[in-house]
């Protein structure tokens, strides 16, 4: 198996007690202690007013992370291919739909319905950034981050073009929480490029293996890693926050983990 290799040009991150990448980087470098707090999200100003009103949590989450990554890289979004990776669609919206359908009056609102598609965040992204490039939405339950990273790296290597990976998952309300216990929102974006020349956060090379996935020493961060599929990326982020050099093993599918080599 040939490793898939790309250069990381920009990072975006938002999660519980982590307001964007510089803040998360300080936590992951252990420059300050991690204190989990509810994820704070704002409706991105990039969306037209109508879409901004209709945008749910997952849309705000994905756009916040994605916009931070392209801003960090100074990369225009219009021609940028995107890979969205998420375990599911918007859990709150799904709850509202299923509750309505189970009631005596099963009539849904059009906004609820169009927000129910798993590519809602991808659709809002393309509208907000006027990006007409290809966009996909990859789902692999708890392995969704790994699946998204593989897809984005394959696009960079095979299609020889930059690709923005945005992995995100938001909280599921009860009673869905009891069967899918995702407690809060976490979003990570990586702008990946085949171009080695310009500055960035380093080089990433991936292949599959059967080693055990890395865990995090800090108990609260490890608990976050396990609780939200997109947060399975945390060992990679920790390496990027610290030396940017080393070997990271991420959770992927049963019997198959993602082995990453990072170099500056």
């Amino acid at each position, binding site marked *: *198996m*040939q490793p*898939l290799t790309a250069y990381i040009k920009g990072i975006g991150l938002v999660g519980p007690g982590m307001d964007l990448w510089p803040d998360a980087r300080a936590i992951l470098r252990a420059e300050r202690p991690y204190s989990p707090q509810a994820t704070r999200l704002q409706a991105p100003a990039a969306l037209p007013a109508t879409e901004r009103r*209709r945008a749910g949590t997952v849309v705000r989450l994905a756009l916040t992370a994605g916009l931070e990554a392209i801003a960090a890289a100074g990369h225009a979004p219009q021609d940028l291919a995107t890979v969205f990776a*998420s*375990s*599911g*669609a918007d859990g709150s919206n*799904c709850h509202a*739909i*299923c509750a309505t*359908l*189970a009631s005596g009056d099963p*009539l*849904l609102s*059009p906004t*609820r*319905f*169009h*927000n*129910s*598609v*798993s*590519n*809602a965040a*991808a*659709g*809002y992204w*393309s*509208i907000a*950034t*006027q*990006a*007409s*490039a*290809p*966009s*996909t*939405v*990859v*789902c*692999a*339950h708890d*392995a969704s981050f790994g*699946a998204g990273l*593989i*897809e984005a790296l*394959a696009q960079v*290597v*095979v*299609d020889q073009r930059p690709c923005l990976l945005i992995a995100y998952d938001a909280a599921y309300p*009860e*009673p*869905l929480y009891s*069967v*899918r216990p995702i407690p809060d929102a976490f979003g990570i974006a990586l702008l990946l490029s085949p171009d080695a020349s310009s500055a960035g956060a380093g080089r990433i090379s991936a292949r*599959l293996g059967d080693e055990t996935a890395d865990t995090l020493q800090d108990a609260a961060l490890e608990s976050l890693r396990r609780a939200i599929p997109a947060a399975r990326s945390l060992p990679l982020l920790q390496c990027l926050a610290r030396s940017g050099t080393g070997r990271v093993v991420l959770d992927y*599918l049963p*019997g*198959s983990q993602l082995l990453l080599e990072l170099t500056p």
Partner: protein
Amino acid sequence: MRPLLLSHFTATSAIGRGLDASLDALRRQASGLMPCPAGLADLQTYIGMVAGVDQQRLPSALHAYDSRNNRLALLGLQQDGFSEAVKQAAARLGPARVGVFLGTSTSGILETERAYRQRDPHSGALPGGFNYQGSHSNFAVADFVRRYFGLGGPAQVVSTACSSSAKVFGAARRMIEAGWIDAAVVGGVDSLCLTALYGFNSLELLSSRPCSPYDSQRDGISIGEAAAFMLIERLPDSLDAGAIVLSGFGESSDAYHMSSPHPEGRGASQAMSAALASAGLPADAIDYINLHGTATPSNDRAEGRAVEGLFGAGTPCSSTKGASGHTLGAAGGLEAVICALALRHGLMPGGAQRSWPQAGDGPPDAAAAPMARNERITDPDIQLNYLLDNIQHPLQHVLSNSFGFGGSNCCLILSRAN
């Protein structure tokens, strides 16, 4: 792009289980659409339902994956010797060298809808034994198929609404090209659910009659369900005569609106152009186009403009959704299989649809009798060679469109390898 061999394929939809039944229905221009039963939804619409799905039983070891969607997947896998072909490929190449890339829009949400009807009236809790991961989670169908065959390669579900199971071909192609796998199970599975039925109803996009793509009186979609699978492989050194290959792939985003296409079909045109470029083909090399053709007024108009802009008004084209219904996340896979059948048998399927007389200025009269076959009228504002009858003619290259909510567009080109 380097072409890929479509070594085996199968489809199960409202027009039949497997290729023989599907081809027979296409030859007869038969439609599988039926009135939506009151027990399913209280809506005046037609649906394309697959018979016998509920009677399927998953292997006991995979009981956790039980859902109507996975039962439909299993029914589909059992047709045309597809399961045997996958097992042989896994034995020949090694299970870790075979990936799984499937599309779905609503996955097994039907099971969550059912569970919500059985919530505890006091606590609101879902019934015990409800398994979200195996049923509703978007990955459930790929997880099930991967475990069913004991495969170890990369796996993903693509969920981009109605382009889902076209986009999977791109993901599988990249993994094969990157050398991570040698073959992939691709396709799509989507099953009827209330979210889709009442959702499209909320957008006033459901027709009260069997859908009639590109008809002058078209007024909405008929929702269907399907399981379609293809085994795709790196091209071998020598090909059988008549082998069918994936020769082109193109994608784009409308960047326009969440639930309406760009009125001029901007994204549709971009996706088709990208597919032609990746195949290295001029537009006039395409012998037949399987349109997305959902039968909503705006979709068909936008796609029609894009097709006319690129191909002119001469290329034979049709939508097969009048036969199968719009199978949403399975549509790209189902229509890729129909294109493969078209190439194999030299059959350009005419739209299995009827026209209805205009009922004055009011809303369409659902009770009106369809017009006779020879009175069918395609939309005079769309200048395409839209086929209302089958044409038997050898085909070399065919193109299939799949467009979804969120402005997600995908286009495939399938060819006979000579």
